């Protein structure tokens, strides 16, 4: 069976450094955890998904070529099942958020500057648009168009569902980060700033650490 530990070019990392398949798998696991626990839709890790699917495909071809009864086949198939679970569960979690917050994620995509990376993959975006049209059409045909003229529109101020960024999450600190503003100044108390030390585990509201999740300085657990 072919050696699959050869270095892979990873286009996602800014420094352009290359990662091994094992490292990409580790990244996939982190992305899965973050997506599972973050209330908001995070940036799609398309390169990681594609890279792992590619690895699975190659491995499946190797398996097909393997001799009947090769005892390694079972092990490789198990590993493929495990990786496919990560990918499926990751994309499924994202799909659930896209369905729930469709208008919100489309709004954000629209407001995105050309230099910013999109949250969704092109295919997720297509899905979101079709899903949103299907839903709006449903409202229109069964209800809105039978209503008085001044009530026929959906008022986004009320109807757009947004994730609750103030929900609590558990995290582990990956990099020392000083001066995280966790509470805005209020009438009764001053602002609260904390330092995060590598290895610490915290329970905290998502909002103050949202950018740290995207940057990888903390990971949700």
């Amino acid at each position, binding site marked *: 069976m072919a050696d699959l530990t050869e270095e892979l070019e990873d286009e996602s990392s800014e420094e352009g450094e290359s990662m091994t398949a094992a490292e990409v798998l580790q990244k996939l696991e982190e992305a899965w955890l973050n997506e599972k626990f973050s209330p908001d839709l995070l940036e799609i890790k398309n390169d990681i998904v594609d890279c792992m699917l590619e690895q699975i495909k190659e491995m499946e071809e190797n398996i097909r070529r393997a001799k009947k009864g090769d005892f390694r086949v079972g092990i490789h198939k198990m590993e493929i099942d495990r990786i496919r679970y990560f990918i499926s569960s990751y994309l499924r979690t994202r799909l659930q958020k896209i369905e729930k917050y469709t208008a919100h994620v489309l709004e954000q995509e629209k407001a995105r500057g050309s230099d910013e990376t999109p949250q969704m993959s092109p295919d997720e975006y297509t899905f979101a648009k079709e899903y949103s049209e299907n839903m709006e059409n449903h409202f229109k045909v069964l209800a809105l168009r039978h209503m008085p003229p001044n009530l026929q529109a959906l008022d986004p101020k009320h*109807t757009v*569902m*947004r994730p*609750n960024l103030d929900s609590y999450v558990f995290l582990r600190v990956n990099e020392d980060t000083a001066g995280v503003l966790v509470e805005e100044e209020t009438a009764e108390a001053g602002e609260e700033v904390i330092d995060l030390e590598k290895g610490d585990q915290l329970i905290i509201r998502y909002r103050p650490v949202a950018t740290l999740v995207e940057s990888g300085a903390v990971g949700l657990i």
Partner: protein
Amino acid sequence: MTTSCSNYMSIDDIISTNERIPCKFQVQVQRLGFLDSSSDTDHIQPNTKLELPFWLATALCNRRRHIVAVDMPKQYKEGYREILTADANVVDLHKLGPYYYTFGSHLLCFELPETPDIAKSLLQTFQSRLRKIMDASQNAYYEDTTNLTAKLDEMERDLFKCGQQGLRDFQRWETRASEQLKTSEMVINHRKRKRAVMEETS
């Protein structure tokens, strides 16, 4: 509500905003006298007292409009707040509720003088009842939990369910029951209903 998650489509939110509030009309409202079942005039007269659902009260009493003046429902007034301060754990919040916290939070938008006290009371009540809810949801692994949740308001019941969920999932794992791949819940329920219908008709 100040939480950023919008709940326009929420069944619970719609039902909780139907709770009624004592209102007093400040102006005459023409041709809607029939809303007051205790009188047979064509118009609602000023000073008429009516209990209106929250969704209506909030449209008629706000910073821009003063068509009605609202009063707090009695379960949020000082008398009840004192009872809650004394021992929140013995109070049947479901009887006062059933959406005691959610409805109470809604009421804050009327900006009455006692608003800050109500807000404080809601928070303190929740904090002091929490331990009991946590212990009940963690220790009890009974099939029937109606007893334990009878005096909890809807928000607390939801929390209780979360506690049970964590425990039940863990116990399913511990006994290795989670290893078994299961028929999906909807399919099972669908079959049960179908069987029930067949038995009825046979």
